């Protein structure tokens, strides 16, 4: 069975048809060409597919595409505004907070959701706030520093 979904993605009105049992991640990657969300595990353990659904941080591999109907989605592709990077994106580059970069979209989305809820997080709050996202390259050191710098920049 297929479903017809009308939704908003990164501010744009989007319609698509997908099987009722198709994960949102597959819809984004295979139907809509939004490959910024990555599949690292498919079981909600790595956070590489993180998106913000109606203001809530979710793993898009654990949500069905059909659930998007009438809702609003934020993905990594909508994080920069035109040519201007989001402060988190810029600080990730400035702090060398990425190496291979495959976890980076998920971290940026998770960090954006975290700072929205808590604009002035402690180091511990950042570490626990990002504990659902796996990075194997950096040891998280430069990621935490980049988030701290972005939070400071966004408060001023």
């Amino acid at each position, binding site marked *: 069975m297929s479903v017809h979904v009308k939704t908003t993605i990164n501010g744009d009105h989007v319609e698509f048809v997908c099987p009722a049992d198709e994960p949102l991640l597959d819809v984004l990657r295979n139907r809509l060409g939004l490959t910024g969300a990555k*599949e690292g595990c498919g079981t909600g353990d790595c956070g590489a597919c993180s998106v913000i659904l109606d203001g809530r941080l979710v793993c898009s591999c654990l949500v069905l595409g059909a659930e998007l109907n009438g809702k609003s989605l934020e993905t990594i592709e909508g994080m920069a505004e035109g040519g201007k*990077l989001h402060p988190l994106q810029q600080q990730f580059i*400035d702090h060398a907070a990425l190496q291979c*970069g495959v976890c980076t979209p998920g971290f940026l989305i998770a960090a954006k959701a975290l700072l929205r809820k808590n604009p002035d997080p402690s180091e511990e709050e950042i570490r626990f706030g990002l504990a659902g996202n796996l990075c*194997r390259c950096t040891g998280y050191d430069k990621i*935490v520093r980049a988030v701290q710098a972005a939070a400071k920049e966004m408060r001023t």
Partner: protein
Amino acid sequence: MGYESDIVERKFKVIGTRVKRPDGIDKVTGRARYGADTSAPGQLVALVLRSPHAHAVIKKIDTSVAEKLPGVKAVITSADFPDLTNGDRTMRDILENCMARKKALYDGHAVAAVAAIDASTARAALKLIKVDYQVLPHVVEVDDALKSDAPLLHDDIFTEGISPTPTKPSNFNKQAEYGHGDLDEGFRQADVIVARSFKTEQTHQGYIEPHACLASVSPDGMAELWVCTQGHFVYRNQCATLLGLDANKLRVTSSEIGGGFGGKTHIWAEPLALALSRKANRPVKLTMTRDEVFRCTGPTSSTSIDVKIGAKKDGTITAAFAELRYHGGAFPANWAEFGAMTAFACYDLKNVKTISKDCVVNRPKTAAYRAPSAPMAAFAVENTVDELAKKIGMDVIDFRIKNAAKEGTKSSYGPVYGPIGIGPTLHAAKHHPHMSAPLGKNTGRGMACGFWFNFGGQTCVDVNVTPDGNATVAVGTIDVGGSRASIAMAVAEELGVGFDNVRCVVADTSTLGHNDMTDGSRGTFSSSMAAIFAARKAIEVLRDRAAKTWEINVADVEWIDGAAHAKGAGHGNLKPLTLKELAETAANTGGPVAGHSEIVADGAGVSFATHLVDVETDPETGRSVIKRYTVIQDAGKAIHPSYVEGQYQGGAAQGIGWALNEEYVYGKNGRLQNAGFLDYRIPVCSDLPFIDTQILEIPNPHHPYGVRGVGETSIVPPLAAISIAVTNATGVRHTHVPLSPPRVLAALKAAPKA
């Protein structure tokens, strides 16, 4: 021939700065394309059927029903892969690992694959393939596999390195010995001797991006492969061999790579995608699941190691011995031999001997994992060194400084060292504020040293000057941690232009000569060396063009700060010609300006590190938490210090996971019990503190800028340093990693009450 550097004292303008990476914006906006991020018109989806048994004869595979399912375009088994390896055992093992032939040798071994119009059809087709297995007894532990009555994996393995060669096949594929001096005499001279046995469990590289590729083979033999890999030239050569393709017709393009750490150094499922594409005459996309990544790719060996070291009361080590037993998974490898070579590499020893025993077990074929084999050897040796120093009553750092290898030391694995960094890292550790910081309750401090060889190898780089006076650099080594930035920095430094004037890309296999893969910490070391030589050749061309323009002798032209300068009396009125001016007039002075370099990058300088760590261990739960961590390592010359720090931190974090959490857990049936990130737990952000780094620069005389590989050594000391810290926190020596809470509690319970 190694290159002898003459400019290690050079004042750099670009090298050593922290420029912004050229792939940064693509990676923070989701635009960067990884293995699974590309598609082709008419592509099919491939899925692989894998053995549920650890060891079984494949009596029959019936694919007829699956083939008839609407939407299925191709089904393949080992029958589609005739053995074209021509007696090359390594390639034959890779072939058999990609697709099981007569036997399934581990849980997850591929037995068939399908290509269908979509994933759900492919899934349905897999269920329709009937495999008739005869299950055999299996073996997964190293010491069990080496027993004479162990279940036999291969009937054609006869232990290499033992004289006479055994006539009976076994799982024990290779023995090797390293060392020098008189071990018995050394132990006779010792006042104190410590002997211990150690075990380490199997871990996975844990890259976040699963293996993925898109293959397209045409009936005329032209083929394209888009793939995440650490070595696209190696993938091309291996796939061409196994499929009988001409290497020149198989064009491999490397995607961005979402981590590799050694796990993407040889082919796994790529030949299956190519064979399916050839059979279906359609492009085929194959993406592994995380379950598949754990069950059938990459892990490192589990090990069992015995160490015995003797020393005099004054702290001089008189004799050192180790026997190291590692497995290669289901196929023969020589990982124990690497362990035997690295085990005592940090020390200056008169009498030393190591014996390696490599074997096969019913686990996935192992691959390199960051400084492969060295962390386990260092775990065993450094714990023994720690215990010995304490028995003698000497400070553990002073004891190591007294015995540290130095320039001129004959290493335990043979070569004589040039200038090296083990002594300087130990002195830096001794004076580091971390060493004198107070410790909290239930907290212990550990320190340990580590070594890695570093590799060089075949490397090929093109530097092209564009008509507007900028430069492009084409390299053939995959960028796993920022090497495009680092190599562009080296070319900018040579040409005397800004970093923004140079763009470095990874070329595909049809546009550049063969390059070895990015392994052995060689990517930045060898490609920066080749890029520097290529840039110097381009400068020769530019000087020649300036000489022609000025109608003077080329010997009178110097290249300074991005421009040709005429030197000597009589040329004083000639205004320098910039790179931009020379590029713009190139069409009239001889055509495009370029420099090329093809080298075997010999002389990768060996690398040493010392790590310090504070660990709090809860005596009631056995849980250990890293409170503070410091990495001190020699980089030779840090081209981009942020990326060097990143390598130090990333290696330490992987070592922390290995030391405390990560391990393959097998059931009695030989099936992997924890093939997912929930149950195979790698460190998360809240598990770690900031990881402090100190970069030392002891120039490598064989690189024009003094660069050494930096990527791997940082994973070598953590297992040792952390276990020593837990030993100091709990008062009990811990000899089996990972130090998971149950294992620590068991060790505490078994220990005699103090």
